[in-house]
């Protein structure tokens, strides 16, 4: 048992427990906070895998911006006090659990049967240097320039779409 493996096991337990907590909380606010915990553990995994820039983007964009938006909408709608209605399909829950167990077992089996030989060692200190970030930026702006520009258009469309959707009744009154 190396220190890497111990750290990995503890963090994966926290990640899975946070995901289950998100799934089974009655209150959506608790779900959102459990999901923040899960995102932060995944960010620590990214640091262990030697991707510091992605780890920081994960914390700022996911745990920061997206989850704040979620909490804002939950509190705006007062969704934490809504009573859950009886489900229209009573057989759906057991069937969903059954299918999820099948999915987990077969994906684990397939991953283990086609065992990858790769081993992840702890990143050395040079990974967190500026040189590494510069290299990643060179790849992003040379090899992936077109996807980068398309992403900017996508974000613009999403921004305009969100404004148009929430502003519809004012347009209808004219």
């Amino acid at each position, binding site marked *: 048992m190396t220190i890497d493996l111990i750290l990995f096991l503890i963090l994966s337990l926290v990640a899975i427990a946070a995901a289950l907590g998100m799934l089974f909380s009655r209150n959506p606010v608790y779900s959102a906070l459990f999901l923040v915990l899960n995102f932060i553990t995944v960010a620590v995994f990214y640091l262990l895998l030697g991707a510091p820039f992605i780890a920081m983007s994960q914390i700022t964009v996911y745990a920061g911006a997206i989850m704040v938006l979620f909490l804002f*909408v939950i509190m705006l709608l007062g969704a934490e006090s809504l009573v859950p209605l009886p489900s229209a399909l009573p057989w*759906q829950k057991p069937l969903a659990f059954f299918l999820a167990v099948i999915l987990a077992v077969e994906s684990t089996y397939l991953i283990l049967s086609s065992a990858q030989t*790769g081993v992840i060692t702890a990143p050395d200190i040079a990974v967190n240097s500026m040189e590494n970030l510069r290299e990643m930026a060179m790849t992003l702006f040379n090899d992936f320039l077109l996807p980068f520009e398309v992403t900017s258009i996508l974000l613009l469309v999403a921004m305009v779409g969100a404004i148009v959707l929430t502003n*519809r009744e004012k347009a209808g009154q004219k």
Partner: protein
Amino acid sequence: MVKVDYYIILSAVLFTIGALGVLIRRNPLIIFMSIELMLNAGNLAFVAFSSVYKSFSGQIFVFFVIAVAAAEVAVGLALIVEIFKTKKNINIDEMNSLKG
């Protein structure tokens, strides 16, 4: 020394939990969070392979996935707010007509 398999199995488990959340919860906000969890599980697999093969392409793909997730959440939450304004409820079973 952690084998890359462990990371991929963790990613598969998180993905399964997210898929289960989409199936069993009736609150569209929780369903959205489960979708975020599934995207995150995919990202973890991308970064694990990127670390094994010493290539930046996986990390850059994760960067794009994060941007797409942000766009998706902005539009999706706007839709949920709009549905709540008309129906005064956000149960997923009642969202069965395209006409508001």
